């Protein structure tokens, strides 16, 4: 477990220094852990666990948009689990539940062999429609059609810089909309 966490910290340091592949690996590695934690938290609150993927996706968005608050000299896991707890509590409150989230819901057991699992959630998809057209197009091109920044730029006759800006704005406004729900 300690080794896993050290590995995360190393990957996050690489990500911050601009290594997109390391960032992708990190997000993939933490997702099963977040999923397990979200399920544990929902079960403890007596909520159906089918909402867990919405929570996982919200956590990932928050991790992404707030990663500048991580101190590169500190271990990554406590920061990650703090964000995760925050999002789980948010989600439970939104459903009118006053629940204590167990500190260890996320930290408890890190699966050694994360099950290869693809999961889908509805909340982000639902908010997608309310984005400005340009942001939505760029986001869909990259997320759904798995186009690169470069291909997306060519497709919409935009500069790569403009695609990057539109992509980041799309992610930020999605997060804002989820928060306002």
């Amino acid at each position, binding site marked *: 477990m300690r080794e896993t966490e050290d590995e995360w910290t190393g990957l996050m340091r690489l*990500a911050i220094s*601009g*290594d*997109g*592949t390391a*960032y*992708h690996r990190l*997000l*993939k590695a933490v*997702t099963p852990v977040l999923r397990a934690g979200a399920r544990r938290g929902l079960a403890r609150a007596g909520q159906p666990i089918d909402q867990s*993927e919405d929570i*996982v*996706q919200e956590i*990932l*968005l*928050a991790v*992404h*948009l*707030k*990663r*500048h*608050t*991580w*101190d590169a000299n*500190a271990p990554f896991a*406590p*920061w990650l*689990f*703090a*964000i995760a*707890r*925050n999002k789980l509590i*948010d989600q439970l409150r939104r459903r009118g539940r006053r629940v204590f989230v167990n500190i260890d819901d996320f930290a408890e057991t890190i699966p050694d062999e994360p099950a290869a699992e*693809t*999961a*889908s*959630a509805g909340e*982000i*998809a639902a908010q*997608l429609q309310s984005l400005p057209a340009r942001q939505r197009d760029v*986001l869909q091109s*990259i*997320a*759904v059609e*798995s186009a*690169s*920044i470069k291909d997306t730029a060519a497709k919409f006759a935009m500069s790569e810089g403009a695609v*990057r800006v539109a*992509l*980041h704005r799309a*992610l930020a406004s999605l997060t804002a909309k989820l*928060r306002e729900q």
Partner: protein
Amino acid sequence: METEQLIRTLAADNLHRARPVGLVLTTALLAAAPVSMAMFLATLGVRPDVMTAMHNPFFDLKFVVTLALAISAIAVSLHLSRPEASLKGWAWLLLVPAGILAAGIASEMMMPQRLPMLTRLIGSNSRTCMTAIPLISLPLLAGALIGLRHGAPARPAVAGAIAGLLSAGLAATLYASHCTDDSPLFVATWYTVATALVTAIGALAGSKLLRF
């Protein structure tokens, strides 16, 4: 959307670099400061005898106390902008201004005074003090909240309260140059009431605005 797709999208945005919270907070406070300063100069202004007042250590002490409050609150608010941070180990910083003030009260007690204690405590500007500090602090509070929104505080109400302390400290620094009541007893009473009010406003606003 599939989580796999979201992850790929986030990775594609990896090169985006957000500015550090400290920088955003500083910028927001520097933008808000002229507004508060203008409000202060337009309504109250610096007291006319400021040149002689500066020779009174108790006049100077007011600035030490209010600036100590502002600086320690800035440090704590930046610490709390990290999601895994708590007040533990940091709350004592907020006691520094209180400690300085207590030392001020003690040393005033040891000196011969022209006015009785209660008169010094009540002073002649208590009402102005209690209205001016909260009003002058509002633009600064807005700036502090905008800056701290860039962070990710685990407890938004607490972070908002610290933003309140921070802006009250800065506003009180301006107000202190107007006020003719220099007794630490006056400061400990009325400045504290005004600061508590701003802190409560900050906590309320923070609980709404500082969620991430």
